[in-house]
């Protein structure tokens, strides 16, 4: 008798699943939020009300956002839930309720008992209080974040009251709000009255700073940047700077803009359409505008729309069909999405999408500039092929710098694009080993609930015709460590061996070739370049052993690398010669002053592109690492074991890895980096689905 038929087995399997679901109905997976380019900060995307993990929490029409000065709390005006929510940025973006019962109403007092009616805009104030535009009640409310008490700051007076006392004011509607540190005031807009108000928080007095202005008839978004107030009309184009005026108008009745005299002045700073929000950091100002092709405009310093691409390099903005970022999708005229800068990560912003019930983030990494254009390689301000990462490292971030030849950044992937006629798209920065490693590390960290974020910088060598990675590393690395506060430098050593630099520039006092080509030196015959010393002795030895051949008076090359690295007489001087730049670099790194005091580690990673390669080269590089007391990552075995299956190599004309080969490469590297504890990586999980 058959005990289990095929259908019975299926039934049993389903039953086990059902039992598991019944036993652990709320056993949420422990995941950490990602911080890549465009990320989810909090919200399941389903309208409702639920506190909890960042991916399961629910909002209903999240609008205004504000961030505490230290960046650890992100406050959300949860409009349709009539609540103020808080995202704990240092606790895996866990969502909690700060204030509001959920019932629409007006009640001051303890935060959990207080009532709001459609809170829409927020401003974090330096004394650890939070100002709230209570749209339905036409009030400015104040939450004391220490005592968790709610009070009313402005509004609620009688019609016809004059400016002066905030609690006597009557507003017809309220829109944007910002805190302005220079005069310790809150600026907020009243579009239907055409007014921008200034509420002095020291003196608790209210005054109009703009009224009946012909350029900004209905002021909406208000923002602050570099000691200036900026604003935009709800429907008319343009972002304006609010001009300071000394003439103070006399008392003016509230809610009678048609009769009001003109107050204040503005000056146009940029053309933008339907601006919904303004946010700034340092001297950089950004506008959130209702333009599906350019939702974020960087106004200062250079007036340019931000480019949004997926990590795979695909454009996420129209006209790419159906690919508009959820950050901005469905947002329309009159909506009040939140828009705030992250104080601890320059260039990172938070936005809320009331329609999709989410709070997201994006980073201005100037991605568009990083693509290959017309065959020319574009580098960033530090002259590396990578994004403009901020010099200030975001909290909890571990930065790795990869230095290597073209194997680490060039991919053969025309086969993926040629049928579509998109060969020009084939070299994307996201295909580089650095970016693959970054994505994979962050994914692993998120899925394993490890409290770290990784950024991997691509220090790919752009001297295409030289092989000397160590020398390149010696010259470029110290500045990069300093600029980007790097934690780990990985020298990515392939099988290539080069000595060309010795013939291009005289030796420095350290005994290594200079960084820049000395043409006059180069034009001499090689034989005349070294009269005596270690390098001459080494070359003489190699010639004597027929390991070096001169194909012309200026071109010398090794004949057989395997023989070279395994020759017992040559082995030691070769290690000294090849290793010298790295050993010097290691010493130099100890004196590099970084923003953080954490030391920067140097390690050597050997990867054979050719899995059929001999073991002699790996032994050589291992000996070199040992000589310099450098941690050594050997990927030879991994590549030999997996290389046949994955075949990462393109086999094409340019002899590099494929895009998928880079993924294998990064997977293998992560395995070795974690195994050797070269990077901090500690999962907080003890069991599947549970956090410690």
């Amino acid at each position, binding site marked *: 008798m058959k005990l289990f038929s095929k259908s019975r087995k299926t039934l049993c399997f389903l039953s086990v699943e059902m039992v598991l679901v019944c036993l652990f109905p709320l056993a949420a997976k422990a995941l950490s939020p990602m911080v890549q380019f465009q990320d989810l900060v909090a919200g399941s995307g389903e309208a409702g009300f639920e506190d909890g993990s960042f991916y399961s929490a629910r909002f209903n029409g999240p609008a205004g956002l504000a961030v505490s000065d230290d960046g650890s709390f992100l406050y959300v005006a949860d409009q349709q839930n009539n609540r103020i929510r808080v995202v704990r940025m240092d606790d895996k973006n866990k969502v909690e309720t700060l204030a509001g019962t959920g019932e629409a109403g007006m009640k001051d007092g303890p935060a959990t008992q207080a009532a709001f009616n459609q809170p829409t805009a927020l401003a974090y104030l330096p004394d650890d209080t939070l100002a709230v535009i209570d749209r339905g009640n036409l009030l400015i409310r104040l939450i004391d974040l220490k005592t968790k008490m709610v009070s009313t700051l402005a509004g609620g007076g009688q019609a016809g009251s004059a400016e002066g006392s905030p609690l006597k004011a009557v507003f017809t509607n309220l829109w944007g709000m910002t805190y302005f540190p220079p005069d310790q005031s809150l600026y907020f807009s009243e579009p239907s009255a055409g007014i921008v108000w200034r509420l002095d928080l020291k003196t608790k007095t209210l005054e109009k700073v703009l009224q009946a202005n012909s350029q900004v008839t209905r002021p909406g978004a208000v923002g602050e940047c570099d000691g200036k107030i900026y604003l935009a009309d709800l429907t008319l184009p343009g972002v304006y700077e609010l001009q300071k005026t000394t003439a103070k108008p006399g008392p003016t009745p509230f809610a009678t803009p048609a009769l009001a005299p003109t107050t204040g002045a503005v000056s146009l700073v940029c053309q933008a359409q339907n601006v919904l929000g303004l946010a700034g950091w340092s001297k950089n100002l950004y506008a959130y505008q209702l333009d599906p092709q350019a939702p974020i405009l960087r106004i200062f310093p250079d007036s340019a729309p931000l480019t949004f691409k997926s990590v795979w390099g695909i454009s996420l903005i129209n006209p790419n069909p159906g690919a508009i970022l959820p950050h901005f999708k469905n947002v329309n005229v009159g909506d009040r999405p939140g828009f705030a800068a992250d104080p601890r990560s320059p260039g990172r912003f938070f936005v809320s999408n009331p329609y999709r019930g989410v709070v997201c983030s994006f980073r201005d990494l100037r991605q568009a500039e990083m693509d290959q254009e017309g065959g020319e390689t574009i580098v960033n301000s530090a002259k590396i092929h990578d994004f403009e990462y901020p010099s200030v490292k975001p909290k909890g971030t571990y930065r790795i710098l990869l230095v290597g030849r*073209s194997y680490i950044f060039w991919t053969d992937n025309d086969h993926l694009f040629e049928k579509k006629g998109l060969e020009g798209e084939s070299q994307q920065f996201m295909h580089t080993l650095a970016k693959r490693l970054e994505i994979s590390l962050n994914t692993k960290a998120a899925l394993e609930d490890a409290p770290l974020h990784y950024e991997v910088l691509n220090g790919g060598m752009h001297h295409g*015709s030289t*092989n000397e990675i160590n020398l390149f590393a010696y010259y470029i690395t110290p500045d990069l460590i300093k600029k980007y506060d790097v934690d780990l430098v990985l020298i990515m050593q392939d099988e290539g061996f080069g000595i060309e630099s010795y013939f291009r520039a005289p030796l420095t006092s350290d005994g290594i070739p200079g960084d820049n080509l000395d043409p006059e030196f180069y034009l001499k015959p090689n034989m005349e370049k070294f009269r005596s010393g270690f390098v001459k002795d080494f070359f003489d030895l190699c010639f004597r052993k027929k390991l070096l051949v001169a194909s012309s008076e200026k071109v010398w090359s090794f004949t057989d690398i395997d023989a070279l690295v395994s020759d017992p007489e040559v082995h030691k001087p070769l290690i000294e010669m090849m290793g010298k730049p790295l050993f010097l670099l290691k010493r130099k790194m100890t004196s590099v002053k970084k923003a953080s005091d954490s030391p920067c580690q140097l390690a050597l990673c050997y990867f054979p592109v050719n899995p059929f390669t001999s073991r002699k080269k790996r032994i050589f590089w291992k000996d070199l690492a040992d000589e310099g007391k450098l941690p050594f990552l050997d990927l030879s075995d991994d590549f030999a074991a997996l290389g046949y299956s994955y075949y990462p190599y393109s086999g094409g004309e340019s002899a590099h890895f494929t895009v998928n080969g880079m993924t294998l490469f990064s997977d293998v590297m992560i395995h070795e980096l974690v195994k050797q504890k070269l990077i901090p990586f500690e999962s907080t999980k003890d069991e599947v689905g549970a956090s410690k």
Partner: protein
Amino acid sequence: MKKLFCFMVLLAGSQIWARETPVPAVTTLPAPVTVIEKWGVEAVPWDAWFKNNALITDKGEYVHFFWNAQDFKVNFEVKDKKTRLAEAALELVKRLYPVDAKADQVKVDIVYVLERDSYGLPKWDSLQQVAHLEFLRSKAPKSVKKKTDLTAAAMKKVFDKFELY
């Protein structure tokens, strides 16, 4: 037979893998070259020709000038090559002599670097020397306008050394 076939396949595979110095496939096109129909010092866009192609090193006792004329080669491979190279050397020194350099003596190497890599950088091992000149700035003519300004005799007076390769 089967073993031999497998060996051949493996050997071919290992040859492909064994390439030592891969160079990215994208090639950079050289800058468009202007052929100067009617040669004259004033007709040549010298600044554009020298831009990104010249390296100047202050050696203290003399200043060394290095110019890769590969992109403009067609203008020099002519009958009066020597005169044109002399004019180029004089213009190079006149326009790019370092502000803080002091030496009167200058040495000029004009070369053709026949190939560039995919980053647009010269491949130095494809370098071909064209001319080597040495002279004192103080003896150089202020301007060369007429053909007769650089006769063989005049050149002998100006250049202490003029080697054509």
